[in-house]
Structures are given as structure tokens and as C-alpha cells.
């Protein structure tokens, strides 16, 4: 299973900010460049990076970084 640290590190690389800016409760509006367009780019980036695909239900359940981590970890069990 992918660790929380690896996923947060990937977010930090993608948004080009420190990984300290992310925790499980972080929501998109708290990250300056996290908008609808970059969200779509991020999802595609994560799918390519970790080699899996989000389904529609999973995409709609992402409210914060914690949800994102949970879904990715579930896919990598």
C-alpha cells in the first residue's frame, strides 16, 4: 500500500509547494493553485503516476486530501 507520505509528497511536487502545506483535512481552496482546472490535471497526473484509474463515484467523493489518500490507498491494496 502506498504511504500517506508518498502521496502528499506527490501533491507537493505537483503544486510546487512544501509538503507541510498538506494534511488529511486540507481542502482545495486552502492551496493557492488548486482550482477546477488543476484538479483535473492532478487527477490525471496521479492516475499516470500510480498506474490506476479513479471511477466517477470516487471522483465525486473527494472533499479533502484525506479522501484522496484513502481512495489511492484502496486502489493499491
Amino acid at each position, binding site marked *: 500500500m502506498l504511504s500517506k507520505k508518498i502521496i502528499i509528497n506527490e501533491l507537493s511536487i505537483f503544486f510546487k509547494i512544501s509538503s507541510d502545506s498538506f494534511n488529511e483535512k486540507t481542502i482545495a481552496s486552502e492551496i493557492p493553485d488548486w482550482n*477546477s*482546472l488543476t*484538479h*483535473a490535471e492532478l*487527477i*490525471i497526473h496521479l492516475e499516470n503516476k500510480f498506474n490506476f484509474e479513479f471511477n466517477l463515484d470516487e*471522483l*465525486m*467523493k473527494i472533499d479533502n486530501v484525506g479522501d484522496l489518500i484513502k481512495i489511492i490507498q484502496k486502489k493499491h491494496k
Partner: protein
Amino acid sequence: MIFIPFLILAINFSVINLFGLTIIFILMRAYSAYLFKAPKNIDTFIYIFFIPEIITGPFRPYTHWSKINFNGFFNKLNLFKIIDHLIIILFVGIFFSYLYSYTNSKIIKSLLIYLTLYYQFRSASEIANCLSISLGQSYVKNFNSPLLATSITDFWNRWHISLGYFAKTHVNQLITIYLAKTGINIKLSYFISVIYTFVFIGLWHNISYSYLFFGFYFGIIIFLERIFASTVDKIFSNFKFKDVIGIIYTQTAHLISLFIVSEYIYKILIVP
């Protein structure tokens, strides 16, 4: 999921628009309950048909719903706040009709409609929240000073926040991702999805050319803002009155949209 707007528009076509808004809220709540695997019991039924919220919003996702609790209903019911907001709705309506009858200027009329819509809608959402809280629910913020928004994107993050969030996460982002995965350039995917989302929101209010234009108008502005945001930020980074210019630009752009759809909005205001 991305075809749901078509279903919604079909409903809007077939029933009176005011009921259309309510039916759409019921559908959204039913979908949220389905998405988060709500149990098939009376509590889920109450969530889907919770009258205070399906009439005016805010839209509450199922994850923000707690079991209805009548314990301490009268202690939690903030009657003073409800009366306060009812007075605002009535006072704004009276004040609006008085000023409206004294002007022939369409711009001033649109401005009056805009301000009346804002204060009445915000108060209606607050009353729905008061009733929800007294039944054991949490507060759902639906407005965050939209008159102080510094861009149209910022405006839609402050006006009817709960609906905007639903449209963003359940329509806009999904279509962008779906189109981008089919090989379409990501920015073009975003453009198509943002136009689709705003046309859907516009036609949800009323099936008319005015609201079709409303959808294209905001879709294009938001796309341009997203694409040029960093350039504009760089240009105005050291400018002292950056926010003031942002507020003037946003409110002017919004007023232009109300100029187009004011006839419909006039009908839904509470005016004595």
C-alpha cells in the same frame, strides 16, 4: 452523471420553473444519498425531502446530514434570528418596490433587483439553516460577502456556495477529466465543461434565450479568468487598489448579467 443535467432540463421543461428548482434539489439530495450509500430508511427519506432546504437551499450533501433529532428543538430554535431575517426579507421587498416604482432607468432597476435578490436569498438560506440546526443539523454556509468578490470566479465561490460546490465537483470537474482522458487538450476540455456547467445552471433557472446567454457569458468569463489569472496577478501585484478594481470589475460584470435576466428574477422576488 454528466447526463443528469439533461434530465434536469427535461424536468424544467415539463413543469413550472419554480417547482423545477425544488425537484432538482430533491434529485441532487437523492443522488448524494445514493452516492454515499445511505440506508433505505425514514431518515434518508427525510433528508431527501427536507422542506426547509429543498425550497431555498442550501444544498446539504448526505455526508453533512445527521439523524433528525427533536430533543431540545425549542432550545435550539433561534426564533430571534428567524424573525430578524423575515424582517429583512419584508423590509428589503418594501424598500425595493418603493424605489423600483420611482425609476425608469434599466440599469438602476437591475441594480435594485440584484441587491434585493441577494438580501432576500441570503436571509431565506439563513432561515432554512436555523430550522435545520434546531433539528440537529450543522450550519451550511451559503453566502460569504459576494458583494466583496474580486473576480467572477471569486464571486461564484461566495454566492450560493453549496450549489456552486456541487456544480464544480459533480459536473465541471468530472466533464473536464472525462474529456481530457479522451485525448482532448486539457484547457479545451475545461473550456467545454465550464460552458456546459454554466449553461446548465442558467437553464435550470429558466428555459430561455436570456439564461442561455447567461450561461455562455459566465462560462467564457470564468474560462478567461482561469487562463489569465497569473498574468493579471503579475500586472497588478504592486498596485495598491487591486482589490477595489477587482470588486468594481466583478460587480459591473455581474450587473450586466442581471440586465439580461432581470425579468425572470423580478418574478421570484418577494415584493409586497
